[in-house]
């Protein structure tokens, strides 16, 4: 398909923005200035100042001499990029691939987009009108190449639509500066009397390269389409994306749900064809006022079950604030995985952790209250009780090692062992009684000790001698003495758990 590109040129980007914020500047001569070598230089002017003869690069003193009532404000160097990024995000409604072109332009890849507006003319008119309504003075051009669109938007005098394949004709009458080359090169071209592109477009390439370097040829080729050029998109385009532009702004909850349903249907149909399943997805709504509202979901297993995915999004839809309404919805699949072929073999018969219903349940719970609250544990090869298990990384993670069953372990454990007072025969006997939370327990039966050494390569500290003890009421506890018996230290007994 023949590529088509649109270039938007903001002639007075920053001054227009200032005027939007301070409407009284509209009818005044107004410039932005920045200090340079101890004087103030004009960096941007508005239409009115421009028509009075103020040029960029003049000193402010000179400018004030020309226009006595000149309004001057400080320029902000980072402003242009910020403004262009904002406008470019807004422009995603016109085409998915939008890139900013500093200092004052936006380029879009509009291949296959214009027919939705009923043709290129209507498309450009719509862009122009809407940006104008925001208060920006723009020129918009469309061509087969980025270079040609750029040149025609800035320097063209005739039609802003360069018909497919007509870029040579469109470029011929323009000045060499339309080729996006540096000022020194333009000066050299003009010195030789090459004031229009048609003067040198036919010259032999080796001669051009020798005199002006390869940059000129590259730029020329890019503008003519013999050299490929790409836009760096503001948001990288996801390979799995569905878009739904709305005829009228959507403000209601039901409207959003219908939009979501449409997009999910389309995306899942496509994923199913390619035997892929969704893992992470983002649903975005582009609001009329230029803001973007988004909600995201994740699943434990690749899936393209529309009903389930809809439920996951449904839990979050209410966080989307429509304000004046959404005019575009997009659904991106940020992460897709191969759909396991077993999955559709027996939807109902899979049991245990492979159960589809279970992973959908965990998706729902995770979506509502956070995935970090859901844990599954697998054994770890450590003797130290706190390290004897670790969280599983995925729901289908297989066990690397076995759960140990050769030693008694308490069913209830204290997150941190708590200090207890004991009286114990020395040096190696279990305690006779201990006091925990103010209650005295007389020990009737005991097992142990089981010595668990510190893993010195992980952590310093004392080893633990664990005892299983039972008090007179039949309660069973897990106690340990930290380190060897030591006369100089008094407290070294801890309670760590409760047996069933």
């Amino acid at each position, binding site marked *: 398909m023949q590529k088509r590109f649109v270039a938007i040129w903001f002639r007075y980007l920053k001054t227009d923005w200032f005027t939007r914020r301070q409407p009284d500047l509209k009818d005044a001569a107004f410039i932005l200035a920045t200090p340079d070598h101890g004087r103030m230089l004009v960096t941007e002017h508005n239409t009115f100042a421009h028509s009075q003869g103020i040029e960029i690069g003049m000193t402010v003193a000179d400018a004030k001499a020309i226009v006595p009532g000149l309004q001057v404000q400080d320029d902000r160097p980072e402003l242009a990029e910020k403004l262009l990024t904002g406008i470019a995000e807004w422009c995603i409604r016109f085409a998915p691939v939008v890139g900013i072109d500093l200092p004052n332009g936006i380029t879009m890849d509009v291949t296959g987009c214009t027919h939705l507006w009923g043709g290129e003319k209507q498309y450009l008119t719509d862009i122009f009108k809407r940006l104008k309504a925001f208060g920006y003075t723009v020129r918009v051009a469309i061509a087969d190449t980025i270079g040609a669109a750029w040149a025609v938007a800035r320097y063209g005098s005739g039609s802003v639509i360069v018909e497919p394949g007509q870029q040579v004709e469109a470029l011929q009458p323009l000045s060499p500066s339309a080729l996006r080359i540096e000022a020194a090169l333009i000066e050299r071209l003009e010195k030789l009397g090459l004031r229009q592109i048609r003067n040198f477009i036919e010259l032999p390439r080796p001669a051009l390269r020798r005199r002006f370097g390869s940059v000129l040829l590259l730029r020329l080729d890019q503008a003519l389409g013999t050299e490929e050029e790409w836009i760096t998109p503001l948001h990288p385009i996801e390979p799995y994306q569905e878009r739904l532009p709305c005829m009228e702004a959507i403000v209601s909850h039901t409207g959003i749900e219908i939009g979501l349903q449409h997009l999910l249907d389309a995306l899942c149909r496509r994923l199913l064809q390619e035997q892929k399943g969704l893992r992470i997805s983002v649903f975005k709504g582009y609001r009329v006022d230029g803001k973007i509202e988004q909600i995201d979901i994740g699943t434990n297993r690749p899936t393209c079950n529309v009903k389930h995915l809809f439920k996951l999004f449904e839990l979050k839809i209410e966080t989307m604030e429509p304000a004046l309404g959404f005019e575009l919805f997009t659904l991106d699949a940020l992460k897709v995985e191969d759909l396991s072929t077993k999955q559709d073999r027996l939807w109902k018969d899979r049991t245990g952790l492979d159960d589809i219903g279970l992973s959908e349940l965990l998706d729902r719970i995770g979506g509502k209250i956070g995935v970090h609250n859901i844990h*599954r544990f697998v054994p770890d090869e450590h003797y130290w009780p706190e390290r004897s298990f670790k969280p599983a990384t995925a729901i289908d993670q297989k066990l690397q090692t076995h759960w140990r069953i050769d030693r008694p*372990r308490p*069913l*209830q454990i204290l997150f941190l062992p708590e200090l207890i007072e004991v009286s114990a025969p020395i040096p190696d006997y279990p305690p006779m009684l201990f006091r925990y939370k103010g209650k005295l327990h007389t020990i009737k039966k005991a097992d142990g000790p089981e010595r668990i050494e510190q893993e010195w390569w992980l952590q310093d500290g004392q080893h633990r001698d664990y005892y299983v003890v039972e008090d007179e009421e039949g309660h069973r506890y897990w106690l340990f003495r930290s380190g060897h018996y030591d006369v100089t230290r008094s407290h070294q007994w801890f309670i760590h758990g409760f047996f*069933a």
Partner: protein
Amino acid sequence: MLKETRTDIMHRLQKEILPLQGIRAALNDTVLDDALGPIKHAFQTASFPLGAIHEFIATGSEDAAATGGFVGGLLSCLMRNNGVAIWVSACRTIFPPALKLLGIAPDKMIFIDLKKENQILWAMEEALKCNGLSAVIGEMQDLSFTASRRLQLAVEQSQVTGFVVRRNPRKLEANACVTRWKITSLPSEAADALPGVGFPRWKVELLKVRNGKPAIWEVEWAAGHFEHVAISKAIVVELQKKVG
């Protein structure tokens, strides 16, 4: 034509009422009933009611451990065929490796840690609706009648068994749970009067049961099933003296 006697009619009506109350005969789990031993006779169908909500009262960490042990024993039967259970709690105190000692694969247990009681109830209700699960355990302090009714309605659809462990309950009001249990530890006894701690032994109190008889048992968990120990208190005390 034989005339139905009054008792026949009563029996027939009671049988009709049982499924309406969420107790279904089809859900018999013979392995679980075998493991339960004499406890199963407390229920009208002589079988532990599955697909229902059971409530356990636990005060203090020691009782919680004993309750966990008893519930764990039931779970080991319910989860024996590669089953998965979900454990919802506010502050998780279960030590996963210890579940293996009760016969449960700890990696088949999914823990959900939540802060608020209403979140726990929501998660538990959602989980109970998922019929791929063997059981759902929820630890909470209070359970209102409405909440318990919601849980009961969820299991009637999915036939999942739910266990509500109420830790330090503030008040015990009536609710829609099928049973109410209280499990406390008893002094263990090693075989042949050997020294050391023996198999876990509990006093199992069935405080409330719908269509059944409340009762008290003393059971020991050994070799994967509940062993009924019918030793009178006096002997226990005497044995304690001998060993201690």
